[in-house]
């Protein structure tokens, strides 16, 4: 809300710079977003009339003007394109100073004498407009100090008023706060009107709960015309466009007293009266903003026939006050906050009026604001007060006194403040304080709807005393032992592991378009969860998986030329099952490009499925879990048909890994070599890791033998390795070559592996190893149809046996 410094000073005397005032308001709980100053250091600039304009004989763009300042006629050379005879303008006479420190001297410009300067807005420090001179309304008297006429020296503060303080949404409201802080008195604006005849037909309230008060005042003989300059300036500086004097006055009083008002052209009101009712089915209204709206069953102000305003929100065009309007009905009402809020939300129209009503207006203020507006209309637009009616609905409940125990307030705020001080502080804010110093009974002033209990009173004390007085107390929390969730540890362990493997953690919005989901769908559509009100189609789905988001990130990186990108994300995903929403925590990663970044010492090696498997296995090892199993893949269509695996833990599928299908990678404008994986961490978190147990270091050396054996290609290595491992003294098996050529039978390949044989009790002899070797080979021959190519003794000693 924009607040004018000069306007505030009409209600409370203070001598603070705009910055000091902003600091004071911030301390009171009203943040100030910006300060705008109006008017530079300008002296001796007066209002004057341009009587005639002639072209300068020696310069195309200059004019010779005769200007009258109320006493003297002066010749002034002017360069502004918009200067014209008859205008009232600011004139800087010889000796004057304008913004920027320029002093005006008598000058000869291209042979013509000039005794002053006509000023633009910028030259007066009133904005950036330098396209021409500032033209004032014709009715401004001549020879007046322009600084006063243009309210220079004003500053406008953009004050952020929190939703609990609608009472501060006006100049007068903030003046109350400033007065309380500075221990001053606040003045009410002038509102002297004579009493008019009570006319019961003027207003009828049908909805007495939604409208609790409606003060109607009928005026006649009003002359609608432009507002005086001072009013225009104030409204414009506070962000309201000037329309005409009557409409401007309703807005002026809104900014001044915080109470919304509306003026109807009474001649346009059927039967010249209004009724406050709900809209009937099918009723519409052409609103002041030019939009015709269906009114639903919201609260409206209607005349004898049709709705003329959406109560508390916006007026109707057909009954608006225009030039030519002579009879007015001035509305100042009290509407239920929730009703106004629902109407403006449903009809999608927000106004200064609805903003204040939905935050809560003051029941008592309705008549004060009406009087103030009537006073200003009579003063500015003329006319007479014809009739009035203070119509009542159900009176809102009386304010209740609040208990306030100084001891409790001290405990809450953490510093001692004497009961007498509490009492004084509250009284400055308009509270009535009764009762004993052990337990006050505090009645908030009429405008304070937010003070409902002791904690609210404590806030008033804190606000007025300053939190700087609160001491600092440090106590460790009285606690049970900390037990971080397993999911949390998994996130941390995964992050540490993957970061060490060259992965960067990504953070995504967690929302997804259907299209992005279709690309790499891993769940049936009926398991997904949609938003009812997405921002756009790009975020209509709560991400059922993380991979589609990471694919998006890869695309961003690819477009920007980033190479060898590895990303991972740990986040909640969303799916539905049995009418419930589940939020499994997932971990996904993507990696593209080379296994090792390029370097001048070696050729890069592209990433492959074996790297991908290693990361998956490494993760499980980082989590302290055994028993990860890779099984034939899930066969998702976005994965390479030959390179995809599902990942199982304890026999349950917990995720997958694989290479992106080359066709998809191409379509999605990704590099060709992309590996991806996604795992359900919530499931993994349910598996408790086993604490490792130390089994001792081997006491005897192992004996190594290398084998080269031909197997049918369809025999999985894991089956072979499992079989080999079953033999006595087989300690470790290491595959070191897979080889295939024309010398081997079709469908066969040769696997070369090294076995470490070890007896924990003693050193094995060559003969013993020979025996084991023989039975082991016979076994794989019969089990898999394998045939031996080569056996070699490897007499290297095993690590860890310095004896």
């Amino acid at each position, binding site marked *: 809300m924009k607040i004018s410094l000069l306007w505030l000073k009409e209600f409370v005397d203070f001598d603070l710079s705009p910055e000091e005032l902003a600091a004071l308001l911030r301390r009171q709980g009203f943040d100030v977003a910006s300060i705008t100053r109006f008017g530079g250091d300008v002296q001796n600039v007066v209002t004057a009339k341009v009587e005639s304009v002639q072209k300068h004989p020696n310069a195309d763009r200059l004019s010779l003007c005769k200007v009258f300042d109320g006493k003297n006629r002066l010749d002034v050379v002017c360069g502004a394109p918009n200067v014209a005879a008859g205008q009232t303008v600011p004139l800087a006479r010889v000796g004057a100073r304008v913004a920027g420190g320029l002093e005006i001297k008598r000058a000869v410009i291209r042979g013509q004498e000039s005794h002053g300067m006509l000023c633009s807005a910028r030259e007066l420090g009133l904005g950036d407009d330098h396209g021409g001179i500032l033209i004032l309304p014709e009715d401004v008297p001549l020879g007046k100090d322009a600084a006063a006429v243009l309210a220079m020296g004003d500053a406008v503060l953009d004050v952020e008023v929190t939703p609990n303080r609608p009472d501060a949404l006006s100049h007068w409201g903030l003046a109350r706060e400033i007065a309380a802080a500075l221990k001053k008195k606040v003045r009410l604006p002038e509102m002297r009107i004579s009493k008019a005849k009570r006319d019961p037909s003027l207003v009828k309230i049908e909805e007495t709960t939604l409208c609790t008060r409606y003060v109607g005042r009928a005026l006649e003989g009003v002359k609608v015309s432009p507002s005086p300059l001072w009013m225009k300036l104030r409204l414009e500086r506070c962000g309201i466009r000037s329309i005409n004097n009557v409409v401007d006055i309703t807005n002026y009083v809104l900014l001044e007293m915080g109470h919304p008002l509306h003026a109807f052209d009474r001649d346009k009101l059927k039967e010249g009266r209004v009724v406050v009712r709900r809209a009937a089915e099918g009723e519409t209204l052409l609103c002041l903003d030019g939009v015709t709206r269906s009114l639903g069953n919201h609260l409206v102000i209607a005349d004898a026939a049709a709705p003329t305003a959406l109560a508390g929100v916006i007026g109707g065009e057909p009954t608006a006050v225009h030039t030519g309007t002579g009879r007015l009905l001035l509305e100042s009402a009290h509407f239920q906050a929730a009703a106004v809020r629902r109407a403006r939300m449903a009809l999608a129209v927000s106004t200064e009026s609805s903003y204040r009503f939905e935050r809560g207006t003051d029941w008592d203020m309705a008549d004060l604001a009406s009087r103030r507006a009537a006073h200003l209309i009579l003063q500015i637009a003329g006319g007479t007060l014809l009739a009035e009616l203070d119509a009542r609905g159900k009176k809102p409940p009386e304010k209740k006194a609040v208990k306030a125990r100084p001891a409790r307030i001290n405990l*809450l705020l953490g510093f001692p403040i004497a009961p007498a001080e509490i009492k004084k502080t509250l009284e400055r804010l308009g509270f009535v304080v009764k009762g004993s110093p052990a337990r006050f009974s505090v009645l908030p002033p009429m405008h304070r709807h937010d003070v409902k209990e002791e904690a609210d009173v*404590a806030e008033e004390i804190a606000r007025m005393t300053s939190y700087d007085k*609160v001491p600092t107390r440090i106590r460790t929390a009285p606690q049970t032992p900390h037990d971080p969730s397993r999911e949390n540890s998994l996130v941390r362990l995964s992050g540490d592991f993957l970061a060490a493997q060259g992965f*960067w953690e990504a953070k995504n*919005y967690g929302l997804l378009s259907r299209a992005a989901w279709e690309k790499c769908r891993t769940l049936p559509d009926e398991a997904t969860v949609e*938003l009812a009100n997405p921002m756009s189609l790009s975020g209509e789905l709560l991400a059922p998986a993380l991979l589609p988001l990471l694919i998006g990130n890869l695309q*961003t*990186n690819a477009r920007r030329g980033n190479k060898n990108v590895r990303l991972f994300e740990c986040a909640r995903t969303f799916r539905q099952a049995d009418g419930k929403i589940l939020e499994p925590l997932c971990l996904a990663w993507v990696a593209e490009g080379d296994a090792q970044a390029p370097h*001048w010492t070696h050729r890069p090696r592209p990433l492959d499925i074996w790297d991908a498997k290693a990361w998956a296995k490494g993760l499980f090892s980082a989590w302290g879990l055994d028993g990860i199993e890779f099984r034939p893949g899930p066969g998702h269509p976005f994965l390479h048909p030959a390179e995809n695996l599902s990942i199982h833990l304890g026999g349950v599928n917990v995720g997958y890994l694989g290479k992106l299908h080359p066709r998809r990678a191409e379509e999605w404008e990704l590099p060709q070599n992309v590996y991806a994986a996604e795992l359900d961490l919530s499931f993994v978190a349910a598996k408790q890791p086993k604490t490792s147990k130390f089994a001792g270091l081997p006491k005897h050396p192992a004996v190594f033998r290398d084998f080269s054996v031909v197997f049918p290609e369809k025999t999985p290595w894991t089956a072979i390795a499992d079989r080999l491992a079953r033999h006595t003294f087989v300690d470790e098996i290491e595959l070191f070559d897979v080889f295939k050529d024309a010398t081997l039978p079709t469908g066969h390949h040769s696997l070369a592996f090294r076995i470490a044989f070890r007896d924990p009790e003693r050193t094995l002899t060559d003969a013993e190893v020979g025996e084991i070797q023989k039975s082991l080979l016979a076994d794989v021959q019969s089990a898999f149809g394998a045939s031996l190519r080569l056996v070699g003794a490897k007499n290297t000693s095993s690590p860890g046996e310095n004896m």
Partner: protein
Amino acid sequence: MSSLLNQLHSLRAQAQQDIAQADSLEGLETLRVRYLGRKDGQLTKILQALPSLSPEEKKVLGREANEAKISLETALNEKKGAIEEKTLNAVLSAAAGQDLTLPESPLSVGRRHPLAQVMDDIVGCFLRLGFNLAEGPEVETDFNNFTALNHPPDHPARDSHDTFYVKNFRDGEGLPLLLRTHTSPVQIRHMQTHKPPLSIVAPGRVFRHEAVDATHSFVFHQVEGLAVDVDISVADLKGVLGLFARHVFGSNVEIRFRPAYFPFVEPGIEVDISCTLCEGKGCRVCKQTGWVEMLGAGMVNPNVFRAVGYDPDKVTGYAFGIGVERVAMFKYGVDDMRLFFENDVRFLRQVSR
């Protein structure tokens, strides 16, 4: 016999000369085989002739031959050492010219996301103070997200929480489920299931239905804090938040409390930290005030206690909500919040410590 002895002498002299002239390990090996070879070595042959000699001759020749053998072996070994030393020196001096300013091997190392690091940092600070970690779901009920937190229906404070609603899902009261707009519902969940005293921090992701720009995002992260006991005061809040600010922003940082309004606390407090960029002198970031708005806090509103079945006359508490993005932007000097969610590795590489 004297001819054999002469032969031995000349052989020894010849061998010594050959060895001295040898310039490679291969050449040396050839000489070893020539003179000392087990089968055809010239010295071996002389030794093989010994048995046919008289005992007197045997004694003299035997002694001399053995001396010759030892001396040749010594010479061979010394020469071998010399050649190896020379070869190594050649290798080392060849390597001496190597340009060690050439780039090192690249390590493949990534890092946690800056937001995750900041969040861990904040949470870690409170865990050390004895707080517990609490978490809650991202899809919430209207009650937990709003009503229990003293945002009754039709309350204008709901306006600052533009909300995403979930399609086709309603809570027990028939209200649509929503994406939590803050981490504060974790307070409600925790208090409903725990009795005071308690102190928790709840980090998490939150959602607001608002347009994205440099300083707004429809998804962001918060760390919620809550402490409830019989005598918690603003002074305790000042204590923990001061520690937090110094932990995250540096030991010189000061905090300032200003009155503010958040419906779930009363009094509500806006917490500013002294601007670390200009050290309080005033700059663009702090809008010349020397202070930067950092987080919202306050004393738990009695209505919140009532909503979870606590007696507001028996307990007091504080709550705070730290915007993780805001902290990260200030800490790393990031001027556009969207960068955190683009996941451009060049950004992540720069902003991660």
